[in-house]
C-alpha cells in the first residue's frame, strides 16, 4: 500500500468515486447553464440575477463549485504526481492550486448567496 497524504480521498477507491460523482454534478451544471444561455431570448442582467436569486440555483451553483474543488484537488494531485518529480516543487504547486480552489469556492459563496432578484 502506497501512502499519500496530499490527495483528497481516504483511499484509492474513495478518490475514484469522488472523481466520478463530482464529474456528474459538473456535467449537469454545464448542461443546465448552456441550455439557459441557448434558450434565453436575451441574456440580460435582470434575467441572470433572477436566475441566481432562486434558492435552488444558489445551492446548485455551490454544489458545482464544491464539485470543482474536489475534482480539481484529486485531478491536479494525479497530474502533478505524474509529471513533477521534485517533491518540494510538487508540494508548492499543489498548495497553490488547492488554495486557489478553496478561494474560488469562498468567493463563489460570497457572490452567489446575497443575489436578490430585480
Amino acid at each position, binding site marked *: *500500500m*502506497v501512502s*499519500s497524504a496530499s*490527495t483528497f480521498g481516504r483511499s*484509492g*477507491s474513495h478518490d475514484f468515486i469522488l472523481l466520478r460523482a463530482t464529474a456528474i454534478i459538473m456535467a449537469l451544471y454545464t448542461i443546465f447553464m448552456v441550455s439557459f444561455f441557448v434558450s434565453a431570448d436575451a441574456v440580460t442582467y435582470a434575467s441572470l440575477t433572477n436566475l441566481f436569486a432562486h434558492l435552488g440555483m444558489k445551492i446548485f451553483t455551490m454544489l458545482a463549485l464544491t464539485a470543482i474543488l474536489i475534482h480539481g484537488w484529486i485531478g491536479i494531485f*494525479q497530474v502533478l*504526481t505524474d509529471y513533477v518529480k521534485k517533491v518540494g516543487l510538487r508540494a508548492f504547486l499543489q498548495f497553490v492550486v488547492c488554495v486557489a480552489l478553496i478561494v474560488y469556492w469562498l468567493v463563489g459563496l460570497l457572490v452567489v448567496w446575497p443575489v436578490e432578484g430585480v
Partner: protein
Amino acid sequence: MQKLNVSVYRYNPDVDNAPYMKDYTIEVEKNRDMMVLDLLLLLKEQDPTLAFRRSCREGVCGSDGLNMNGKNGLACITPLSALKGGDKKIVIRPLPGMPVIRDLIVDLSQFYAQYEKIKPYLINDDKTPPARERLQSIEERAKLDGLYECILCACCSSSCPSFWWNPDKFIGPAGLLNAYRFLIDSRDTATEERLNDLDDAFSVFRCHGIMNCVNVCPKGLNPTKAIGNIKSMLLKRAI
C-alpha cells in the same frame, strides 16, 4: 539477396558518454521472412559487441522483450514482416522507461519489486489442509484462463505511461494481471488483505485504461480488463 537497414540503440556505460543509434546494413535472402531475434543474431555476428537477452527463442521465457519500430514485443516471435514500416528501416530499442544496463538489456528490478508487492503465491489460512490437494471445479479453474499465462516479459508495463511516471508506486499492468489471478483463485483466502494492499491512490487507480498493455502483450492477454475487475472488487467493497 536484399539489403536491410537496421538501426539499433547502443549504450555501454563503461565506454560511451551517452546512448546513440547505430546503423547497420545486412544482406538477407530475398522474400524470406525471419524473426527479429534471428536478425539480432545476424547483427551480433557482424558486431559481437552488441548485447541483448534471449533464451528460449519461442515466446515462452519472456527474455527478449524489445521495442521494435515503436512497438514492444518479443523479438523471437515478431516476424520482420509484422513491423510497421519495416520495409524501409528497422529500429530496435530497449524496452522504454526502464534503466538501460547495456545496449538492449534493461534493469527490471523495479518491475520485479512491483510483482513481489502483490504476493504472487497462494495464501490459504485453512487450519486443516486437505490430505492431497486443493481441488477446483472446472468453472473455478476457468477463471484463471487469460491470467496465468503471463510470462513477465515486461512488454506491457514498459509501454504504460503510468508505469513510466511512477514505477515505484504503480504496480503496473503485469503485476496487476497477476494480482487479479490470485484475487479470484478459489483456493486463495487472502482476498481482503490483498485488496487492502491495493486500495491507495497509486497501486491500481493510476491505471487510466489507455490499453497500451493490451496492444503489446505478446501472449494476447488483457491486463486492462483484469485491472477493471480489481477496481470493481475494490469499489463493491467500498460502497
